């Protein structure tokens, strides 16, 4: 079985020692590109008896290593004709002749590039702290395990080197007792697949803990010749620290197929799901308006709730697993807990019944008692996820929304005042075991919300049922695929009026049974799959709206949207200004 991305560890160590003995300096050679790297090296060797070691190609330059004496000799060779060109040979900056040059970055870069193999995508940092160039420059710390700035600096240089695509790293023979000195490796190479830290002195699991869940794609780890490997818990602990580790010291420790299927579960994630196209536009409209008002003036939302409308809130206070990116690990829920109706935690039937709020007044008691918020639907549309499906029995539809918000200020309703009133005050009723909210820290939260929307007699909608789950903040409701087309969502300038989206009812659709007027009625614009793939749901929605408003065909709608930088108001203004000059075929 082909398990390793590494060469022979011992051989690498020997090579590094050789370099050290030789006390090499680097030279750069240009003007060779009419021939191959090997041709050049042979040519130089023939003409000068100098063999350039460990050479790498960097664009039109070959960088290699020779002794300082050889370097002086080679520089004189500069200008020599080779393969129809004249060679240009320089000692690399930071070479021996100029000991005062403090070009640390150049040295680190040289060391990195010399130790990087583009074919195997391996960065060989074995015996790094004895690297002749680093030693010569006084940059190799005597004791690797003390605070060293060299390695973090080198990682910083590496992160700015786009030509280096690193899958494997060798850190063997560095006399490491822990990884503190090299911990930044995880920040620079989070996608590392193979790591070798063999032939070091690591003896405690604790010293690897800083890397827990940092290398999320690490598949293979070599740790031979470290005291830690003889520990009884060695295998288990490595599996815990490196969640996707498959091969440990040349032994298969996880079933890779199974691992892959688990982490690809259930299937690819999707940001939006709409039962049909019509629902997409009306539900995103609705949510945008709803959240705008939720952030600015919750009282204005109360028109959406009838005396039969219900609302309840649940708090999921469990702390996210360590693998979850940027998760909030010390969440506080003081403002929410007094209202939490989590049936799996609360056993009192009376409490469960009381915490289902019915009618606008009772619902607003809760809305007003929750912290003021800011959602980021416009700024970060990717961080939100929406599903919507029809509910024909009540001619309505159901929306689920997932995302996050910032708590920006304390709640509108000051509970401590409310509960100071008479014992019969309404505040008491929901303030079980709850006196005041002196210093509850405001923070980010994530949430899930499910709403049942039904048509109201005036053509707008009513929220029949509304259920909100608040949970600790985690990165985003929806994780992006590797390289999605990124498009700005500045387009939709919604006015905070709830009646807007669903009251634009095309009269001809209301007769279709089981449909909400305006929701399913529009004929969607058709774009070619390539264009469609480039458009974000918000852009598609904008196009549909423009199309409905202007009756322009797909091509012209798209041009209008693009010219107005995906801003609806600008687009409509632009359309009005130029409508008379548009050709007939611009319209449907």
């Amino acid at each position, binding site marked *: 079985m082909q398990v390793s991305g590494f060469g022979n560890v011992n051989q690498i160590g020997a090579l590094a020692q050789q370099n050290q003995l030789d006390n090499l300096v680097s030279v750069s050679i240009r003007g060779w590109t009419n021939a191959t790297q090997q041709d050049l090296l042979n040519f130089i060797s023939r003409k000068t008896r100098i063999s350039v070691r460990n050479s790498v190609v960097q664009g039109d330059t070959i960088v290699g290593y020779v002794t300082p004496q050889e370097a002086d000799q080679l520089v004189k060779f500069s200008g020599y004709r080779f393969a129809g060109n004249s060679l240009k040979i320089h000692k690399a900056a930071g070479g021996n002749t100029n000991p005062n040059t403090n070009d640390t970055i150049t040295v680190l870069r040289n060391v990195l590039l010399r130790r990087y193999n583009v074919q195997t995508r391996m960065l060989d940092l074995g015996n790094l702290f004895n690297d002749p160039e680093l030693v010569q420059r006084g940059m190799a710390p005597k004791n690797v395990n003390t605070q060293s700035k060299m390695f973090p600096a080198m990682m910083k240089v590496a992160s700015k080197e786009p030509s280096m695509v690193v899958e494997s790293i060798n850190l063997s023979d560095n006399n490491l007792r822990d990884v503190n000195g090299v911990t930044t490796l995880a920040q620079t190479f989070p996608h590392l697949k193979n790591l070798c830290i063999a032939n070091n002195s690591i003896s405690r699991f604790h010293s690897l803990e800083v890397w827990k869940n940092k290398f999320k794609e690490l598949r293979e780890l070599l740790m031979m010749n470290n005291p830690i490997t003889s520990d009884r818990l060695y295998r288990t602990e490595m599996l815990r620290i490196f969640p996707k580790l498959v091969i440990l010291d040349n032994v298969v420790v996880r079933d890779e197929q199974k691992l892959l299927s*688990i982490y690809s579960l259930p299937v*690819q*994630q999707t940001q939006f799901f709409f039962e049909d196209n019509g629902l997409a536009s009306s539900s995103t409209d609705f949510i945008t308006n709803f959240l705008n008002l939720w952030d600015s003036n919750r009282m204005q939302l109360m028109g959406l709730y009838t005396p039969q409308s219900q609302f309840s809130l649940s708090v999921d206070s469990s702390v996210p697993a360590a693998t979850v990116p940027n998760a909030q690990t010390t969440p506080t829920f003081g403002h929410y807990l007094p209202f939490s109706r989590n049936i799996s935690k609360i056993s009192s039937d009376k409490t469960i019944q009381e915490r289902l709020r019915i009618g606008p007044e009772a619902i607003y008691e809760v809305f007003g008692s929750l912290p003021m918020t800011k959602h980021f639907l416009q700024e970060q549309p990717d961080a939100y996820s929406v599903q919507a*499906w029809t*509910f024909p029995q009540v001619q309505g539809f159901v929306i689920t929304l997932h995302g996050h918000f910032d708590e920006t200020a304390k709640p509108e309703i000051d509970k401590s005042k409310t509960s100071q009133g008479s014992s019969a005050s309404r505040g008491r009723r929901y303030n079980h075991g709850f006196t005041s909210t002196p210093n509850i820290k405001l923070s980010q939260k994530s949430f899930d919300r499910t709403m*049942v929307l039904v048509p109201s007699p005036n053509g707008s909608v009513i929220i029949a*049922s509304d259920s909100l789950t608040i949970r600790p903040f985690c990165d985003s409701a929806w994780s992006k695929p590797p390289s999605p087309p990124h498009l700005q969502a500045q387009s939709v300038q919604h006015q905070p009026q709830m009646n807007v989206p669903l009251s634009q009812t095309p009269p001809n659709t209301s007769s279709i049974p089981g449909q909400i007027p305006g929701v399913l009625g529009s004929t969607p614009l058709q774009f070619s799959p390539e264009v469609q793939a480039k458009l974000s749901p918000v852009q598609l929605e904008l196009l549909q709206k423009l199309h409905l408003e202007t009756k322009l065909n797909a091509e012209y709608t798209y041009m209008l949207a693009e010219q107005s930088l995906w801003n609806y108001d600008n687009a409509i203004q632009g359309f009005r200004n130029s409508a008379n000059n548009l050709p007939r075929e611009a319209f449907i």
Partner: protein
Amino acid sequence: MSVDFSSLAQQFTEFYYNQFDSDRTQLGNLYREQSMLTFETTQLQGAKDIVEKLVSLPFQKVAHRITTLDAQPASPNGDVLVMITGDLLIDEEQNPQRFSQVFHLMPEGSSYYVYNDIFRLNYSA
């Protein structure tokens, strides 16, 4: 008439996830021909297709651990919406995945069936 929808929700979720975790091939009884499953990118209709999808999921051992459960009547007709968040523990992996699921339960005689089932991962590892 007042349906005790919160105990209904509790009984239902307990039954559903126990059945799912022990033998998910038997979940068909809970769905009908008009039932819908929305599972991330896919949507399926009918008990047979839904169960086929659930059975085809790429794991053998799974355990659902509920962290929140909430329920509301969905309409005056006695149907109930059940909202759940929880952890999904797959095979022997230690790091759970978080999920949220909404069930729309419809009354049928003296019991209920799943009219709509919307599953999604809140985030993955």
